């Protein structure tokens, strides 16, 4: 089966292209990106602020069960073209990652079919590779923590 979400990261470059086709009309796909309560649902984060317009800004925050902030990100919207395009910055707060530039393009394929192109440009190839590795590293950490939990239960 062909993968629905594709990631193209060429070696030695400082960008990544993520594409995905949806069984949704393009206006519904676009809406999922501009309404705070919808973004919160599918991104799995709290949306503190989301001004979906040119020169608008946004801020996301995720807290753990104890109320500690585990993730906070913000950015500014540079281009906003309804049902077509959003160009924005994305910056993770309190991390060593540099701000990145995201070009989101929403393409109508058919009445009930659309495609998202997410082109992300990083400050350098190294930053890109570090960010791409993040879920990989988190996966290893999670496996490691789970192992520690199991071991501590054995003691």
């Amino acid at each position, binding site marked *: 089966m062909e*993968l*629905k*979400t594709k990631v193209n990261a060429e070696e030695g470059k400082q960008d990544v292209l993520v594409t*995905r086709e*949806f*069984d949704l009309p393009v206006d519904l796909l676009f809406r999922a990106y501009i309404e705070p309560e919808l973004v919160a649902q599918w991104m799995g984060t709290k949306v503190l602020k989301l001004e979906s317009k040119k020169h608008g800004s946004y801020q996301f925050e995720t807290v753990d069960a104890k109320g500690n902030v585990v993730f906070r990100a913000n950015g500014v919207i540079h281009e906003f073209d309804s049902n077509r395009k959003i160009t924005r910055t994305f910056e993770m707060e309190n991390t060593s990652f540099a701000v990145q530039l995201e070009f989101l393009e929403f393409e109508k394929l058919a009445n009930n079919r659309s495609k*998202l192109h997410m082109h992300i440009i990083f400050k350098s190839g190294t930053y890109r*590779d570090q960010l791409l*590795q993040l879920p990989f590293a*988190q996966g290893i950490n999670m496996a490691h923590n789970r192992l520690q939990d199991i071991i501590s239960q054995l003691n």
Partner: protein
Amino acid sequence: MNLRRDVFQAIADPTRRAILLLVASQSMTAGAIAANFDTARPTVSKHLQILTECELLAQQQNGREVYYHLNPQKIKEIADFIEPFRKLWDDRFNTLESIMQKYKPNK
């Protein structure tokens, strides 16, 4: 994060990538590997040490000689390193799709 032992840091260097390609077809001694480069022998040794530390290369004693060969398990990890990132977005997009398929505009 210890960058010295990070596999991605290890393969960022062109000489180290060339070493990996060399030993991909057959296991080789440090001397035989070094003979393929203009670089000084201690420099090649340093590269071999880094590749071994991050487990991209494995050593095997054969009589008096130490042979280096690829560790296929670790190589596979690099080939797959983008997969968790892809999976993360795939999961988010699947959620987006199912939420929006049920979505009723309130106007």
